[in-house]
């Protein structure tokens, strides 16, 4: 299954509202691509590569997806993203000789488009506040404290520094770590996987 994903010429680049280019690449990426990240990461993790390699792979996949979307919006998005992911993974495995070719054929056989459930938009919207709360609970404690004091209590950075008895630079450090962890918790992780206790 090495054939490239084909874009239906009737649909290519046609977005609701009639435009052909991507007027808002960021909006499209956040709304259409980021919700696929949990399934994408699950797929990448099966390759047995290190967490750092997987983060780098994710970056490369997003780059290719967005570069392509700049020319024309791929529809449907999901098989397009996964085809890019799979081709990239196969290329890298072959190049790095991490896993022999017969394992790659296993990978090629994976039906990535159907074996992981896609996000249900309605459920996501209804669930949004709870999901963010759950992610917040799972932040490292100091980062969580900074985010809560900033976002919920609405304190300024100086006030947080005073309250937590740490420097403002340290507040920033916890905030920055919290931001990265939040992005992973909200996008990269499948909630059900974390909740088994």
């Amino acid at each position: 299954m090495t054939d490239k994903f084909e874009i239906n010429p009737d649909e290519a680049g046609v977005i609701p509202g009639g435009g052909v280019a991507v007027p808002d690449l960021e909006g499209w990426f956040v709304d259409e691509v980021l919700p696929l990240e949990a399934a994408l990461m699950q797929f990448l993790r099966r390759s047995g590569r290190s967490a750092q390699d997987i983060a780098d792979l994710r970056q490369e996949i997003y780059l290719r997806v967005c570069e392509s979307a700049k020319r024309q919006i791929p529809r449907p998005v999901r098989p397009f993203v996964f085809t890019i992911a799979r081709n990239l993974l196969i290329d890298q495995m072959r190049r790095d000789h991490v896993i022999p070719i017969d394992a790659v054929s296993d990978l090629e056989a994976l039906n990535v488009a159907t074996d992981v459930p896609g996000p249900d938009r309605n459920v996501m919207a209804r669930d949004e506040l709870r999901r963010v709360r759950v992610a917040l609970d799972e932040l490292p404690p100091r980062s969580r404290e900074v985010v809560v004091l900033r976002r919920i209590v609405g304190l300024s950075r100086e006030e947080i520094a005073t309250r937590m008895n740490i420097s403002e630079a340290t507040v920033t450090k916890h905030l920055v770590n919290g931001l990265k962890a939040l992005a992973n918790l909200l996008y990269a992780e499948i909630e059900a996987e974390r909740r088994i206790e």
Partner: protein
Amino acid sequence: MSDTRHAEDCIATVAEDQAAIWIGRQDHKSWSASDQKELDAWLEQSLVNSIAYWRINAAWKRTERLAALRPTVKGPVAAPDLVRLRALAKRTAAVTAVAALIGGGTLYLRQPAERTYATPVGGREILTLADGSQIELNTDTVLRISGGAGQRKVTLDQGEAYFQIKHDSAHPFVVSVGSRRVVDIGTKFSIRKSAQDFEVALTEGSARIESSGLRQERSITLKPGDVVIATGASLSVKKTSLRALENRLGWRRGVLIFSSTTLGDAAAQFNRYARTKLIVSGPAAQLKIDGTFVANDVAGFAAVSRHILHLKTHQNEDEIVISR
């Protein structure tokens, strides 16, 4: 795995690290027009930067909804609210630690000086290190290599590997397996780890096994033909012929070599290499076989059982049952 470490080691790409720093700075009243210009320039620099920024920023924006939990009264926050919020902020560290573990540990663990190599079931791989040493990974194996300067440290987490080490007495090559270490003294050896124990078989040169913990245990020096079996508390050594050792290493050529091996043991060996599992039921398991088989050719093995040993084989979805 402490929580501080989660925070420090949160997996992110370089661009995501930078994006998080930008967004962290942006969320501050000192943010100026020239800061914004600098950020715009950074975003313009590459699409990778923009994407990383969009991703982190989208997550950050989603927390805006948390403001709905904010006390409605303006002005100083009432004390009971603060207590409640601080309680929320300080939820038990244990929950976070457990959550990170359950998340596959992939979220926060990052050891830049270390690389992990893994083979899938049926896979095989050869790694060549900078010093010319070679490590061959067998099926279903996970091995980590520390990359520090002058360091030659490897950890075998799972599976089996064959080491051909270029000896360097100034920088001993050390393989950690569980709480023990195998230190080469100019060596070719293989290590196979299972859940409870591991075996070290030395084919050439010499190596030493020592415990890395506080355990009071003599270290053992191996000679060619020695096979050491290390279980939780004990080490035992048995002598094997070099020919038998060579057979053990058949996997390096992709084959399993059996010599008076019971069918049950042979099936167990095959089962390491293929997803389709062989089950030998009843007295058939005691039959002995000789021969060389392609390691993942479960079907071929079943055919031999059927045509030569005249056994029955029955294929289920992902297993083949062999019986008399």
